[in-house]
């Protein structure tokens, strides 16, 4: 048993180290990822082990980072690109949606561009504009991309390796406010398939589905609900595209109630997709409408009021109350 306690950020570092060590065609590219080790130090020290040709400090240009990653992938390399913050991915949006996502379809299945894009995402860190966004729905809507979001160190260690091994392009959303969350990482026994959801807390009366930064919030809300005599199941989605609807359906057929929560705005978000699918799949099992708890339809607010914007334990509990009121 080789279990080590580490932060989620360091678990990703260790996962990247493993990828670079085992796949000579893998390389990292991004702004400040080399000498500095990334603004969150997630790539810290890797340039010393693998050199500047495999841990590439790139010029500042997101379309360039993703575009050149696509070119390297066409050449046979496996690039893992870093976008410094969520809100800065948009200069590369064209490269990701019109090029990266469609390379396999356009080549009629002959080849794809297996690029991993790491994006520290989400709020709750008191930062300024464009540093706290959750754009996953924009990418999940684009066929050809896969979207992952780990919530704990063990998953982070293994899921980054699974993303790198995947022959499809993967956007790897790292919950930046959980970078310092410590957890046990078993480096011998792999985490489950990254594209499967996991029931991380069993329950009988209601289900909360979430992913990434809100997993601890959902767990805390479930614990608080227990004091009210409610047994709440929590599912960590882990993959936002594809979504493991089977695991959610099975849970809802048991509990009869579903709350979906994410930081991204509720409107047009992943929660809406889950609500619609589960309504189709498990309508007769539902005791109440599926309730979504997400961000408002506004640009991510300034840090001084972000606590009012972000889903927290109380908002999830309020949603549970509404669900049980039916």
């Amino acid at each position: 048993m080789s279990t080590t306690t580490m932060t989620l950020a360091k678990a990703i570092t260790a996962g990247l180290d493993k990828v670079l060590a085992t796949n000579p065609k893998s390389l990292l590219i991004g702004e400040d990822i080399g000498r500095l080790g990334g603004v969150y130090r997630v790539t810290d020290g890797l340039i010393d082990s693998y050199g500047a040709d495999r841990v590439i400090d790139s010029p500042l240009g997101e379309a360039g980072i993703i575009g050149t990653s696509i070119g390297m992938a066409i050449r046979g390399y496996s690039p893992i690109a870093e976008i410094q913050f969520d809100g800065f991915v948009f200069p590369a949006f064209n490269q990701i949606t019109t090029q990266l996502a469609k390379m396999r379809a356009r080549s009629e299945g002959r080849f794809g561009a297996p690029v991993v894009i790491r994006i520290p995402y989400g709020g709750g860190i008191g930062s300024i504009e464009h540093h706290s966004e959750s754009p996953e729905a924009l990418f999940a809507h684009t066929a050809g991309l896969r979207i992952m979001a780990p919530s704990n160190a063990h998953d982070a260690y293994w899921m980054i390796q699974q993303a790198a091994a995947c022959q499809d392009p993967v956007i790897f959303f790292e919950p930046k406010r959980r970078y310092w969350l410590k957890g046990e990482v078993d480096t011998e026994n792999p985490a489950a398939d990254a594209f499967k959801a996991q029931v991380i807390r069993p329950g009988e009366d209601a289900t909360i589905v979430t992913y990434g930064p809100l997993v601890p919030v959902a767990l805390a809300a479930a614990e608080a609900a227990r004091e009210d005599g409610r047994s709440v199941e929590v599912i960590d989605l882990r993959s936002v595209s594809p979504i493991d609807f089977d695991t959610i359906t099975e849970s809802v057929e048991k509990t009869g109630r579903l709350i979906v929560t994410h930081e991204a705005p509720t409107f047009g978000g992943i929660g809406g997709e889950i609500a619609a699918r589960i309504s189709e799949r498990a309508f007769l099992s539902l005791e109440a409408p599926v309730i979504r708890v997400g961000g408002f339809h506004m640009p991510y607010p300034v840090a001084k009021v972000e606590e009012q914007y972000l889903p927290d334990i109380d908002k999830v509990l309020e949603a549970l109350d509404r669900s049980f009121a039916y």
Partner: protein
Amino acid sequence: MTNTVHEPSEQALIQLLTPEGERRSHAEYDSYIQDVDAEMLRGFYRDMALTRRFDQEATALQRQGQLALWVPLRGQEAAQIGSGRATRPSDYIFPTYREHGVALTRNVDFPQMLRIFRGISNGGWDPRENNFHMYTMVLAAQMPHATGYAMGIQRDQAGWDAERLEKDGEAVVAYFGDGSSTEGEVHESMVFAASFNSPVVFFCQNNQWAISVPFHVQSKVPLADRAAGYGFPGIRVDGNDVLAVLAVTRWALERARRGEGPVLIEAVTYRMSAHTTADDPTKYRLDADEEAWVGRDPLARLEKHLRDNDLADELFFKQVAVDGDEMATRVRVEAMAFPDPELAQSFANVYAEAHPLIQEELKWHLEYEAGFADTTEEGAPR
């Protein structure tokens, strides 16, 4: 506010063959075409003539409703054949969507190129067979791909000595147009290529028009001048002179393969027809402009050179015309015979690995389609 229009200046261009078909010597670039003999010249003429004939046939097919759209290239044959013939088979090419002549030099079969425009495929041919990438419809999106591919080449060739680089070294050519030059990705691809000294040749066919917007709206300076801002050479060449284009592209590719980094080539040419078959150039440009460029026609120029110097006889030109017609017939027959694809096939190419949503939707689609099996095409029961 003044709007300086930069007319192509013959003096500023590298030119080895005048519009009258006369050979001009050039101290630096003559050495790059020393091997070009009469047979090669005839080959270039044939390439350009076949490309023009293909373009003509595809345009006709579009007019007859057989293609959704066509992107003509008449006038740009020398820029494409000259640059394409400068490459080695191992060099990788990223085209835009107008490089039908470059495709010829890479042995891409012409009928295959029509699959995109006939609505059968979004890619068309296998890029890995001839190192000729798929056409890219989003302007300039292929530019950083070219730089990234070149960065891959650098890693593959790490540790090679000068001799091996010269013999087996690979390079990339990224094609783009004067309109694309405005896109940010052109800038980013050039910054990355300069930063990493990557073996990529940026080849701009400045055909003067981005649909209806003239070049001076894209740039106040010749595009080749911009290279200085990135720290690599920029060169302006007469894009209607196949010899000059061949020479400068060979020079740039040799330099890139040696590890000396990128080059920007601006091939000054002219789109003699519409941007696409949906375009109407009579609404935005003057006949006088077009006529001035007819006098610089790349095919007429080489034909005059071949005839005046007894390098090709009448039989040769007749044979090229006959071969062109035969090729056009084959293109038409084969393109019309392509079977329509099934939507069900499209599900297979979205992801490399199994994806439950795809599987679920494909299953639904097949069941839905199967639901019509008991009815005739008119909807009546069988």
